[in-house]
């Protein structure tokens, strides 16, 4: 186990290095002169030179690359060109808000997906199963900007139930903050909840035929008790791992959800930076999101290797 974790950690370093390289390349994708693009075509030449120098863009590419890596390693993600603030602290604040959404979505996915998946697996190929399979398909297929817009239409505009888009921080008013969390989390959870449900169904169906279930029935347990006490626990393993994989998808989903509900997370920071052509912020956010995804995947792999020792030898 220790060797496996060590190997994965070494690989993690390589992966973060490569990911940071991609983030570094981003600014060089800008057509023409990135500083001109930021400051506008009519900016005076002297100012352009000055900003170029401040960003280090007037140095040779390899020197820039080394400097960028050196800064990233020391946790310095640069400064916003527009606001002048340091990128990393802002990224960390926004990251907290984004993680709140993801945590809420995971809780909802599990709370809804596991019972419904169990229900479908207990009645395979019945009308209930068929209806649930279409519900899951809809959850996966409906774009989150559609779900989000329709939910907003129904709740906020039609029924006047929830406050519309005005962010209230946790410290200011915890109750209102939680109320604000509901719709974005439900929107995010639609797809991941459906994935959890489908996985729970197929995994439970597979377990139902296992030897230990035959034993449980043979010793006189009712079908309900056998499923509750033996099958569900055994069926949860693949569900846990797919949930881990969903974190990446949820991070992607926050891009749209944060925009719709005006949630001040990482994605809104990214979109603002794009419209302001604030390249250091774009680089910082992309890097932060990628590192987060890599870390989550690593955690899932290690947990999975712990649960299933066969993985370690692959």
């Amino acid at each position, binding site marked *: 186990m220790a060797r496996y974790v060590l190997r994965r950690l070494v690989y993690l370093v*390589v*992966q973060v290095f490569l990911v940071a390289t991609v983030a570094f390349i981003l600014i060089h*994708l800008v057509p023409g002169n990135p500083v001109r693009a930021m400051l506008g075509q009519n900016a005076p030449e002297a100012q352009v030179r000055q900003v170029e120098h401040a960003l280090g863009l007037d140095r040779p590419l390899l020197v820039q690359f080394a400097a960028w890596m050196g800064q990233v390693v020391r946790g310095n993600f640069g400064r916003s060109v527009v606001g002048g603030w340091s990128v990393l602290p802002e990224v960390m604040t926004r990251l907290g808000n984004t993680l709140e959404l993801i945590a809420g979505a995971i809780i909802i996915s599990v709370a809804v997906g596991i019972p419904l998946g169990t229900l479908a697996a207990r009645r395979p190929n019945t009308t209930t199963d068929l209806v649930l399979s279409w519900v899951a398909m809809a959850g996966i297929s*409906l774009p989150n*900007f559609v779900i989000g*817009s329709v939910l907003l239409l129904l709740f906020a*505009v039609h029924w006047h139930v929830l406050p519309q888009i005005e962010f209230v921080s946790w410290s200011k008013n915890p109750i209102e903050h939680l109320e604000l969390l509901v719709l974005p989390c439900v929107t995010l959870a639609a797809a991941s909840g459906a994935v959890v449900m489908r996985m729970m169904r197929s995994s439970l169906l597979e377990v139902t035929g296992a030897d230990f279930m035959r034993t449980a029935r043979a010793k006189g347990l009712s079908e309900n008790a056998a499923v509750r006490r033996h099958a569900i626990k055994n069926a949860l393993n693949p569900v846990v791992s797919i949930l881990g994989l969903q974190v990446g998808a949820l991070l992607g989903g926050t891009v749209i959800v944060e925009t719709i509900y005006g949630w001040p997370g990482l994605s809104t920071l990214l979109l603002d930076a794009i419209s302001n052509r604030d390249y250091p912020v774009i680089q910082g956010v992309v890097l932060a999101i990628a590192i987060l995804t890599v870390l989550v995947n690593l955690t899932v792999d290690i947990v999975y290797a712990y649960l299933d020792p066969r993985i370690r030898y692959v």
Partner: protein
Amino acid sequence: MSSAVPRQEPDEHTEAASEPRGRWHRLLRNRRIQLGGGFILFAVLVAVLAPLIAPYHPNRLLGMPLLPPSPQHPLGTDNFGRDELSRLIYGARVSLSVSSLSIALAAVLGIPLGLCAGYYRGAVETIIMRAADVVLSFPTIVLAIAVVGILGPSFRDLVLVIGVVYAPPFIRIVYGATLRERESEYVQAAQSVGARNSYILFRVLLPNVLAPILVQASLGLGFAVLIEAGLSFLGLGTQPPTASWGDMISVARNFLNSDPLLLIWPSIAVSLLVLAFNTLGDGLRDVLDPRLKT
């Protein structure tokens, strides 16, 4: 002699020849494939025939904004007084062209790389698979937004970006299937008669890993429709005045109170198209790759 009479001893040749036909038959009889494929066919027809069936030009300003549905405008008009139905019809062109071109690009990039990684193993495998991992470390839409945001929105860049970020799933699928097949006797047979590597990769291995590729392509098309609509929704995809479903949904959000229907039509269109691609993908998987059945 009637073909319905069963033959006593089908020789190997006819059995091999009838197998693909049986497969086609099973494909067409699958309910999910019928539903998904049917709707996709319908959408493609609508997109191709758009100039013939749309009642108006999608960008023509008809003067009266936000009209309710009427015989002249079956779905009403939008905030600029353009016919909503016509824009919906032309929107299918954007969705289908971006998704099909980008997934074709992803397949063209991903299939050879996956075949090589699985067949040659060693350093080739390490380099290709690690590169795929790096692209996969970014949530697809985040990378797409960052690149499109930096390059500036254009049809060509949109296709390029989606194509590149969706290549790794193809690489992984093809790589996995190739690993399973490379030790097979038919591959060894081809090697032992001295077939060139390119022949083994594309003429021997590729046909045998086609099933998961088809499934992946179908799911990928649904995904690309989502990404295109999502980017347009954020204002980073197809630019106005070109009719695009994502952009229509985004604009409709400003008229939620007065004209909620403007939100509903394009939402239904995107959702049905994605649903159709996913349903088709699930059906293909059920028939072609039963091991992966969920």
